């Protein structure tokens, strides 16, 4: 059974994500410390709220370095909402210095008619990716946020999908075995459940979803 560690750092509800991953056939472990990463096939970092307090809690639980090591080993990883934003270098929301696994910053959505951006919106894909297998091109997903990550110069290739709310922002990113979504698949009905099931499938396969050329170092999948 595919084992998924969901990082529990006190940033939002984990009931739905745990339930959705379990429904997709995964064994879910809530990881409150790095020891829980042991034996996991994939890591999920969820979260809502502000970046600063979230980073403080990750550091207090000694989770920052193990998460970065996991990503640099190109092991299956999913960041959701704040869990996507934290991958970048910093956030304009409160000036927080974030994980810095990816080049770029989190900024306030430009030209938005209203903020927070709350509700269902389209996720326009720039390229095919197995994360979206079986999901209609015009499917809506649920968003709740005011800030979004902007990949740095030369890193625009990270962008898997975009969404418009006034300005456009990256609503899904991918590099090697890492994926991140700004929306909440665990709150996005059947399409969201399908996306999480697709991620569980990628984690089970244990190998990068895309060619290693687009990503960082590639290590062999662990023997199970």
């Amino acid at each position, binding site marked *: 059974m595919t084992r998924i560690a969901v990082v529990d750092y006190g940033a939002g509800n984990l*009931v739905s994500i745990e339930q959705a991953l379990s429904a997709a056939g995964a064994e879910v472990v809530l990881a409150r410390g790095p020891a829980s990463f042991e034996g996991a096939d994939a890591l999920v970092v969820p979260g809502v709220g502000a970046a600063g307090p979230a980073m403080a809690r990750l550091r207090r639980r000694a989770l920052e370095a193990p998460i970065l090591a996991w990503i640099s080993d190109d092991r299956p990883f999913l960041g959701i909402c704040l869990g996507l934003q934290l991958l970048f270098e910093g956030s304009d929301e409160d000036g927080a210095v974030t994980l810095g696994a990816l080049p770029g910053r989190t900024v306030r959505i430009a030209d938005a008619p209203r903020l927070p951006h709350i*509700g269902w919106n389209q996720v326009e894909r720039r390229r095919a990716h197995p994360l979206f297998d079986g999901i209609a091109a015009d499917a809506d997903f649920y968003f709740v946020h005011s800030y979004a990550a902007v990949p740095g110069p030369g890193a625009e290739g990270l962008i898997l999908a975009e969404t418009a709310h006034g300005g456009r922002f990256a609503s899904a990113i991918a590099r090697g075995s890492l994926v991140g979504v700004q929306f909440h698949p665990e709150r996005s009905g059947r399409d969201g459940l399908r996306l999480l099931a697709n991620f569980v499938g990628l984690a089970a396969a244990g190998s990068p979803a895309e060619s290693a050329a687009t990503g960082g170092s590639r290590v062999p999948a662990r023997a199970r």
Partner: protein
Amino acid sequence: MLRVRVIPCLDVANGRVVKGTRFVDLTDEGDPPELAERYAEEGADEIVFLDIDAAPDGRSTLLEVVERTARRAFVPLTVGGGVRTVTEMRDVLRAGADKVSFNTAAVRDPDLVRRCARRFGSQAVVVAIDARRRGGPGDAAAGWEVVVKGGREATGIDALTWAELAVAAGAGELLVTSIDRDGTGAGYDTPLLRAVSDRVHVPVIASGGASGPDDFVAAVRDGGASAVLAASIFHRRRYSIGDVKAVMAAAGIPVRIPAGAPA
């Protein structure tokens, strides 16, 4: 493009969905998670639970209901009623809610909004404003007053001033209920909605007075609402979520029609 949300509201007491008029003559309408799941399948964009019980000893029942719902209905869940502290909000979120709605507690202690927004983010904090026309139900010119305790107690506070203050304190969304229209079926108070949505930059949820799909259209087109909430027209099955969305879509309002949802 961002869709306009259609939100069924479920009144919950003692762990059951109830319906009645103004908190009296309550009848048992079923299990909250079951109804929430049914609405989600029909295409509800979000579910609101209003804990009309809100007695201190009813909290554990509510938390259990929230958790069972979060395990069955994979759409956003907002819980209102009786949350008075940061710790209580934490417990409701931990049980599986995405947002908590504050009404009387926020009017009494606006700093509660600020504390909760700082801890959990503005996107999780909804301020519910119950408003009544000062000049009587037919007069929008005299403005609106905030009322609390389910409309039983007037505060003297101007509703538009309170809307601005609540957003400044950190509310990420306002749920605006017309007490004049609530339960009457006379349609949403669109001048109220327009006045609030012109004053603030956060989404405004319309509530109170819906009797048919045309009212939803008016709340958005004339009132500027980002989302529209209703209770009895869905519970009594006069209209399905799909019926309402079909009329909204025909009026040119962007709504989400999920694949496979019953019309």
